[in-house]
């Protein structure tokens, strides 16, 4: 056992030196997460507002102005362009100068009086975020404006139906994130996404590199066993990944004021488990790749699956079962649920234990699989 430990320590030392010597890689690896965090926080506004809008107001009366005012007062639309007719609105959207338009027909006020007024709102359907936000905002604003007008008309008729408030009001509370703050969505998931990318990428190149440079033979003639080699390849990268995770989480909490609702220690331990599963997956990629180039291509593919299938951006619930099953092969899927649970919802182990168990199992399987594949490939 003592001998075994000594072997392990020796190889870990070698790996440590290799990781620390390549300063440029280390710097890129550690700065990337922070860059991503800042990009997400300042660049991404998932709830789109102030959508540039063109107006073709062919009435220019009180009612048309009231409708336009209702649209802008909501904060969802900014009038940036005034044009003559529908055709010009469409052209402005074609050119990409605005993303929305409103067309108000002539004699709008009289039409409202008669009760058959029709306004037209146009949305740029080439950008999904704009359409989603714009659609429901426009619907809600137009409906509110219509009810308002109705209330005024009925009031003038002198009939006392309490129309100042609707008979049923619905208060919508968004749990965990009442202000729909983007960062509350992003930081917990981004922390684990980056962790996954870091841990997989760091080890994915490791074995392939030794093979490509021919140094693998040097390792093979030492008495070290495959599992030991895998473990020692993981250790230095474990530290690098942990530093990445800590920097993102702390920055998210203290700089971007994202509340951490749950138990930090639980989060830390589970993250460790998650890092191990990522490093294991990276090693597996590394052992099945002939060259670093191949390893790199596989990690790019994995990154894509990470983004799309794990629930990081797109919700998993509407996906077809086959695709959900593929998502279950990626450790990030479990980690996203766990981090949303602990970080955002503040629930304990009793709510997330199935995912934690899955991660532990996954990590173990990966290391075993990597060792076995490595052994087979000793040819």
């Amino acid at each position, binding site marked *: 056992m003592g001998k075994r430990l000594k072997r392990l320590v020796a190889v870990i030392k070698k790996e440590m030196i290799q990781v620390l010597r390549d300063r*440029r*890689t280390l710097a*890129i690896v550690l700065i*990337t997460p922070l*860059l991503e965090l800042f*990009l997400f926080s*300042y*660049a991404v*506004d998932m709830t*789109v507002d102030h959508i540039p809008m063109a107006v073709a107001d062919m009435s220019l009366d009180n009612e048309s102005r009231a409708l336009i005012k209702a649209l802008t007062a909501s904060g969802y639309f900014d009038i940036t362009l005034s044009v003559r007719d529908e055709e010009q609105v*469409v052209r402005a*959207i*074609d050119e990409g100068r605005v993303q929305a338009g409103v067309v108000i027909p002539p004699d709008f006020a009289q039409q409202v009086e008669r009760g058959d007024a029709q*306004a037209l*709102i146009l*949305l740029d*359907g*080439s*950008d*999904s975020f704009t*359409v989603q936000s714009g*659609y*429901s905002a426009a*619907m809600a604003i*137009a409906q509110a*404006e219509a009810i308002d*007008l109705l209330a005024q*008309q009925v009031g003038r008729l002198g*009939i006392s139906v309490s129309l100042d*408030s*609707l*008979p049923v009001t*619905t*208060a*919508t*509370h*968004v*749990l965990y994130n009442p202000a729909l703050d983007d960062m*509350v*969505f992003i930081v917990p998931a981004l922390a684990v996404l980056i962790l996954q*990318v870091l841990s997989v*990428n760091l080890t994915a*190149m490791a074995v392939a590199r030794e093979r490509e440079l021919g140094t693998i033979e040097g390792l093979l003639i030492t008495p070290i066993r495959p599992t030991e080699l895998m473990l020692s390849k993981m250790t230095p990268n474990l530290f690098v990944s942990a530093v990445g995770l800590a920097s993102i989480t702390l920055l998210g909490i203290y700089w971007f004021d994202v509340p951490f609702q749950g138990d930090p220690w639980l989060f830390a331990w589970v993250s460790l488990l998650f890092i191990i599963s990522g490093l294991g997956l990276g090693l597996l990629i590394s052992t099945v790749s002939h*060259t670093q*180039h191949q390893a*790199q291509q596989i990690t790019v593919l994995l990154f*894509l*699956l990470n983004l*799309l*299938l794990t629930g990081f*951006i*797109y919700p998993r*619930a*509407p996906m*077809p079962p086959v*695709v959900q099953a593929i998502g279950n092969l990626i450790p990030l899927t479990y980690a996203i649920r766990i981090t949303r*649970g602990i970080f*955002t*919802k503040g629930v304990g182990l009793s*709510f997330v234990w199935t995912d934690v168990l899955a991660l532990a199992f996954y990590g173990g399987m990966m290391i075993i699989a990597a060792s076995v594949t490595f052994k087979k490939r000793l040819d």
Partner: protein
Amino acid sequence: MLRRIWAVMQKEFIQTLRDRRTLVILISMPMIQLLLFGYAINMSVDHIPTVVFDRSLDTASHAYVDAMVASGSFDVTDYVSSQAQVIEAIDAGRAQAGIIVPPDFAAQVEHGTAQVLMLVDGSDFFTSLSAYNAAEVIAQVHATEVLMSKAERSGLPLGRDPGQGSGQQNLLPLDTRLRILYNPNLDDLWFVIPGMLAMLIQVQTIALTAAAVVRERERGNIEQILVTPIRSGEFMLGKMVPTALIAIVNLLTVLGVGVYWFDVPFQGNFWLFLWLSLLYVLSGLGLGLLVSTVSQNQKQAHQLVAVTTLVGLMLGGFIFPRYTMPPILRVAGNLFPLTYFIPISRGIITKGVGIELLWEQVAALFVYVVAVLLFAARAFKPRLD
């Protein structure tokens, strides 16, 4: 000169074709991506699992819950008996929305004081946004309907056509129609394909070019190239051609499957699109060369490419609209060719507009390509160190 470029090209082609595994990954990756977007991704979420805590269980509360379900946005998965249970179901992830109807709902509706509480899981972005928007709109429409039927009962002259007792919309004095241009059914793939093509070409060209050059350096082959009479510009060109070909093949397959299998309409001029794509490919090749000049080994190049890809993804307008970004980030986005190509791609494929509306973007892309190639040729000297 041509012979020298040809020689390098031949070498690159042989190298590319020999590494079958990489080639398979390269060609299949865009298809996987496309299939995922085609079958897996739903940006607007409906059938959100919902639990209901109905303390009234009368006709008014049933009507309310029915209105929510009928919209298709919410599926009632469970009825529970306390607010705590609603929150627990959301905590545990069994439901992502909860409706809490107070007692005496029917009477309250009659008085006009009824209030429903809707709880939405705020830990998942798309779900909470969809749920929030849907709940607001459906609740408002439902409330208006209740209001109209009340008003009718109290004998209000609202001029409903006797034969046409359909919706409440035509009773309101103002009817706003909403028209979504280019993509009336909000089909996700229509959004995705133009941006994905832009993304794909950029990622592949940068990554392949950077890897190709750095690999030579790492293996020490660069010394052999240095002793040949080839100039750096010629070497660059030779390296770029196979990569450009792979990128174009991928572009065409993705576009073909998108158009013929997923029925994404191609509105504009195909040849215009192809020519502009070729111009755009050059920008990625130039960027890849730049990345390779600052990388010492493949690992560094790989990391740099990953960063470039990510930043391009965030700032280029592929997923997130650019007009919401602060000015400084919009300027930063201009450093990526993706930013110019996405409006071109969306313009030609989705909107069907021609060069007369896109010339600004095309000119910007052209300037960019010339600048980045000049810069790369200057920075790229087959160095020894």
